[in-house]
């Protein structure tokens, strides 16, 4: 009786087959890769959202400034006109206007109520300035203002902007650091799983060596298996993570930070690189573990 005819398997497939397919490390690798990639998607979303937030705050605050004028009542209009005249001659300013009493009252209303007698109080006059690109010389403007209107103070929002942007930038760095830590943890866990698999299959490896297998062949069999398992787990984890981020509430008019957590535009493509990246991590971790362990066998 002749052996059953079967389509010859490729060398890569046969290399995979020499290692027993199942074992406790199989689900561990797949689960770890899936869970880590899921977390990675959120860290990535946090990082990208923080980056957008930093840019948005930086852009919005950088382009506006306020001039606050404190002067005796009889000097108020005179100095206001002087300031407006200085602003009209200053290059790099897109627009400017003095806030009306009604607008000033509206700004103070949340704190003092609607019946504030604004005319009777020494409330400073506010002048809003919108910067043009590439911007104006703020120090030069300050000096000119001190000459024309001694009671004017230019607030270009620097002291507000800097901590906000720094906070957002650090959040972005934290996101990137989280991704790196998750990647390192995944590499460590896959290394442990690979070592366990190699130890479990020590007799298989011994047999392969005895029939003439090189270390590279044996390592390849394990590396392929772990890389494919990781790729599969990471793909599921990435898909679940993307779905989770997509389920977050959309950015609303208030522009709250949490509602802005997610991906925007081409940012949705970023999570797609995580599964191949995880597979590369698994490839390198398993390969290193395999060669180290094989060195101990004759």
């Amino acid at each position, binding site marked *: 009786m002749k*052996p059953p*005819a079967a389509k010859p398997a490729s060398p890569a497939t046969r290399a995979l087959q*020499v290692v027993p397919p199942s074992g406790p490390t199989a689900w561990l690798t797949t689960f770890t890769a899936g869970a880590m990639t899921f977390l990675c998607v959120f860290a990535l979303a946090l990082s990208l959202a923080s980056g957008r937030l930093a840019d948005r705050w930086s852009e919005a605050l950088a382009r506006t400034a306020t001039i606050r004028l404190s002067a005796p009542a009889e000097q108020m209009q005179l100095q206001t006109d002087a300031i407006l005249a200085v602003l009209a001659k200053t290059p790099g300013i897109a627009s400017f206007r003095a806030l009306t009493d009604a607008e000033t009252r509206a700004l103070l209303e949340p704190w003092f109520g609607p019946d504030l007698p604004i005319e009777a109080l020494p409330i400073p006059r506010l002048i809003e300035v919108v910067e043009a690109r590439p911007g104006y010389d703020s120090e030069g403007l300050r000096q000119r203002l001190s000459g024309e209107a001694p009671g004017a103070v230019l607030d270009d929002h620097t002291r507000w902007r800097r901590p906000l942007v720094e906070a957002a930038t650090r959040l972005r760095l934290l996101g990137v650091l989280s991704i790196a830590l998750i990647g390192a943890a995944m590499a460590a866990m896959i290394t442990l799983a690979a070592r366990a698999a190699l130890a479990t299959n020590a007799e*298989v490896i011994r047999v392969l060596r005895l*029939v*003439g297998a*090189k270390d590279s062949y044996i390592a390849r069999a394990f590396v392929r298996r772990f890389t494919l398992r990781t790729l599969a787990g990471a793909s599921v984890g990435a898909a679940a993570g993307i779905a989770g981020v997509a389920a977050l509430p959309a950015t609303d008019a208030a522009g709250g930070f949490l509602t802005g957590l997610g991906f925007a535009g081409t940012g949705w493509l970023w999570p797609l690189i995580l599964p191949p990246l995880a597979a590369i991590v698994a490839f390198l971790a398993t390969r290193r573990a395999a060669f180290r362990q094989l060195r101990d066998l004759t």
Partner: protein
Amino acid sequence: MIAFENVAYSYGGGDLLADVSLRLAPGSFHFLTGPSGSGKSTFLKLAYAELLPSSGQVMLFDRNVTSLSRDDVARTRRRIGVVHQDCKFLDHLSLAANMALPFTVSDRESAPQDMVDLLGWVGLSHLSGALPPQLSGGERQRAALARAVIVDPDVILADEPTGNVDWEMSLRILTLLVELNRMGKTILVATHDLNLIRQAKAQIQARVLRIAKHRIQLAGADL
């Protein structure tokens, strides 16, 4: 092909083999005998570089084993077919896949007709798809012999190939080894079965070596 020059092998503080010098000429047939624990398996392991000598030189195909890289050892083992006492099969692979392992690990394809012929030669055609645990002792030994010769090695080393089979099966395995020797293969069989050795000497020119007191002696005259 394989040469031992003043080889010693120590384990656990004591000598297992000492001052062993031997040369296996191409096409020769040797039996290696001795009581259990005398070092027969150790000698074979030194001959296919699973162990390295504590002193002296083991030359495989004119190269000192201690100078071989790990890849060189793998390549050298493809020229040496080994029949292990416990066969050393991968239990999750079919008999045919186990037999093809030396091809598989060298990324080569075994010719299907060669596989059919080899299975027929050892009388296992009907078991090509069986898993090793499903085989009897004799079937496993014949399959191990088939795996040892599938890549057409220069040397065949067999460690107690008839240790777990009945006399009839022992003769059958011996016949296969004799056939291989007549095809020009160098054969070394470690066995404590003196009847088998006598049976072989009736068919071919075989030298009998005996391990005694850690050394190898020529024992043909005693049989």
